[in-house]
């Protein structure tokens, strides 16, 4: 077994375990912490695929900024575990079965995929480096980049307007 394969399995188990803990833990703070753990594992996958820019952005933006926002909102609300509403047992089971059925159907549909055996370039290749991505972002994708800045401005104004006390 090559070292990249071992790393892939370790990271995959880490991702799935953290995601399962995220949806099963009762305390929302623990959920946020498990989600941060998931993001770190996904960043590990990006590093393994040599997408270093995305790995760093994932840690800084997701695990850093967005999750701090989540934690801040949860702590603002002072929720305790006892008062947390729980769905009925049968509803929970139905939701799990529905999600499992979706997984089953898509896996079955992809069984005869013709690109299934095609290898993914692991641990080499320069397209994920910041030089290549920056060149492409500021030439071909410069209009979407500017539009996304307008999106951010409108999101900021929207958040302030929604969160304002009247």
């Amino acid at each position, binding site marked *: 077994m090559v070292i990249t394969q071992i790393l892939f399995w370790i990271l995959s188990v880490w991702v799935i375990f953290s995601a399962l803990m995220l949806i099963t833990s009762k305390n929302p703070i623990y959920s946020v912490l498990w989600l941060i753990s998931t993001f770190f594992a996904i960043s590990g*996958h990006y590093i393994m695929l*040599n997408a270093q820019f995305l790995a760093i952005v994932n840690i800084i933006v*997701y695990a850093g900024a967005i999750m701090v926002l989540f934690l801040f*909102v949860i702590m603002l609300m002072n929720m305790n575990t006892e008062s947390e*509403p729980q*769905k009925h047992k049968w509803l929970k089971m139905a939701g799990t079965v529905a999600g499992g059925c979706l997984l089953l159907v898509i896996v079955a549909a992809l069984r005869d995929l013709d690109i299934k055996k095609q290898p993914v370039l692991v641990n080499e290749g320069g397209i*994920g480096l910041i030089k290549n991505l920056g060149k492409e972002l500021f030439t071909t994708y410069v209009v979407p980049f500017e539009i996304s800045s307008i999106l951010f401005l409108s999101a900021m104004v929207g958040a302030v307007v929604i969160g304002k006390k009247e």
Partner: protein
Amino acid sequence: MPVNYYILLSLALFSIGIVGVLTRRNAIIIFMCIELMLNAVNLLLVAFSKMHHLKAMAANAATTTGTDGQLFVFFIMVVAAAEVSVGLAIIVMMYRNVHSVDVNFLNRLKN
């Protein structure tokens, strides 16, 4: 690594996100499950980008095929950040009005 493994991993993550949305009533946790689903898609996009890069490298070693996929991931992250700020503002607003983040309270909209 065959691309099959990445597809299965992303599918598993996406399904876990869906199960979370269906089984929880806390609006914040539902929101986090949506982030989880976005990240599953991001992982799959990067894997496909590297797959196409390897295929194109056989013809030309200096090719940049597959950059688009990684830039899409970047834009998904940008949109997710904007979405989170507005969504959390809505959740704070909801908490201020009904003193709960239970999504079942939102059904008063239909009366």
